[in-house]
């Protein structure tokens, strides 16, 4: 098998006495959709923070494409192809949806130290941005200020922004949280289409979505990975059942 795209080696993070990431070792293969599930407070978001560079781990290593990126700040990781979305929506509320995405396109296309020319009119930025909005089904709302979008639309916008950075690996922190049924169906369909194009690490509480999308599932409980396997085998893993999921939820 090819070398993993993302590899965590003995990553550890503690807040005082609370160990939130406990010796996590994990590898994500190129092209797979790797879901991370776990109960509330298991440390999933904290793990994403450490992979994306939002927070430094206390110890251990993060390797991306074989290179150690443990000490690299977030913007540099993004430029290497590692993008993330946030569990708590993080967008630019005063910018239109299109401009939110166009900024991500701008970040990877040429220098942003250009002091002349109207950026909002640049077709080379707006074109790809519109395609990303299209992909998540948000293009009809392109010119609406992002702050005025519905909660579900904001979640879709986060996804579009992440895509616009043209990542090799996309880290999604509960993209379905708080979306309505139709919106969440659409996001699942979008992810299904994206699966063939890029590697995805998906954190999600919606088990239907996880088991229909994931190639592999890792289960995180109290900061520890207790299992990494195919969805079917995770579903039947007694340890997982005991530690985490209500029996009926998995059947």
């Amino acid at each position, binding site marked *: 098998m090819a070398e993993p795209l993302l590899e965590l080696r003995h990553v550890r993070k503690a807040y005082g006495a609370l160990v939130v990431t406990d010796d996590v070792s994990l590898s994500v293969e190129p092209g797979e959709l790797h879901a991370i599930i776990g109960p509330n407070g298991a440390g999933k978001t904290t793990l994403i923070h450490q992979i*994306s560079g*939002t927070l430094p781990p206390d110890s251990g290593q993060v390797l991306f494409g074989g290179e150690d990126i443990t000490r690299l*700040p*977030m*913007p540099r990781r*993004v*430029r290497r192809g590692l*993008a*993330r979305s*946030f569990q708590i929506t*993080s*967008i*630019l*509320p*005063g*910018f*239109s949806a*299109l*401009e939110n995405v166009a*900024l*991500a396109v*701008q*970040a*990877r296309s040429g*220098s*942003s*130290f*250009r*002091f*002349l*020319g*109207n*950026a*909002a*009119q*640049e*077709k080379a930025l*707006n*074109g790809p941005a*519109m*395609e990303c909005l299209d992909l998540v089904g948000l293009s009809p709302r*392109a*010119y609406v200020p992002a702050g005025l979008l519905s909660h579900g639309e904001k979640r879709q916008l986060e996804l579009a*922004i992440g895509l*616009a*950075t043209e990542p090799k690996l996309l880290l999604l922190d509960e993209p379905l949280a708080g979306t309505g049924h139709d919106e969440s169906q659409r996001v699942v369909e979008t992810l299904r289409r994206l699966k063939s194009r890029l590697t995805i690490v998906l954190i999600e509480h919606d088990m239907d979505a996880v088991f229909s999308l994931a190639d592999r599932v890792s289960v995180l409980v109290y900061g520890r990975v207790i299992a990494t396997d195919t969805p079917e085998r995770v579903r039947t893993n007694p340890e997982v059942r005991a530690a985490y999921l209500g029996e009926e939820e998995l059947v």
Partner: protein
Amino acid sequence: MTELAETPSAPAPSLTTRLELIPIVLFAAFAAAPLLATSSGAEGYVLSLLTRVMIFGIAAMALDLILGYGALVSFGHAAFLGLGGYAVGILASHGIEDALIQIPVALAGSAVFALATGAISLRTKGVYFIMITLAFGQMLYFLATSLAPYGGDDGMTLSSRSLVAGSGILENDFAFYWVCLFCLLGTYAFSRALVASRFGRVLRGTRENTTRMEAVGFQPFRFQLVAYVISGMMAGLAGCLLANQAEFVSPAFMTWQRSGELIFMVVLGGLGSLHGAIIGAAAFLLLEEFLPEILHAAGFFLSEETRSHLAENWKMVFGPLLILVVLFVRGGIMGLLRRPHHG
């Protein structure tokens, strides 16, 4: 993707065009003012007052660039007025009186100071940024007071205004007025282009959500630093003009009160519109100038004695008035001009 170009990018283009009217009217008023000044009889007074307004307009606009568009509350921006002023004063005292040398030196000095202090200040956030910019401003202020060869506390009087390529044209108040208007217009046009550019869009993005900007791959610090340097240079230019207007430089150019006044002008005019800062500077300086008379006139129903008391102690009214504007007129004067169109 082709239909993209045809789709209107703003829901109400009429609103934007209507707002463009404000800067047009503003600059037309500045252009027409000298003609009115001639007919007013107090030509010198009107010209010098309006020249000051334009100079502070440049400085306030410089501050708006980082405060309004980058949410960076610099409490030491008067330092750049001082830098510009002292560059003119010190060079002139050594016989270098040409603006073509003085201004580039002032700009370079401001840029270096901004780069050094910005690189440190921008590592802090919020109230710490305010305090550290204040501290750097004070540092420069105390340096100026200790410059004994250049007047120390008392400052120094310029023997004449700067030359321009050897000619003393700026001695003419009208010519100097037009030069200041030209500088105001130039810095305004440049700033407008800047905030709409790729660079400006990143700066505006960092104002709204720094984490999001990092998460798409920008390093906010660099953009903030460059904006800080540009803003400092513009304020430095205003300092050069101010020294020429007053024909005098002193540490008073860069007191922290002056920095506070600059912030006030920007907030009064309305953050983040550039021409709002110019309007704010105008409102501030004109109010400061005419409030005593206004109070005297407004108190017509009071006894003559109370009226003159009121006029003498106009600052007691000025302060609360400013507070009321900030509290009740959200978005400053620009917010006021915008509001009626919205409903």
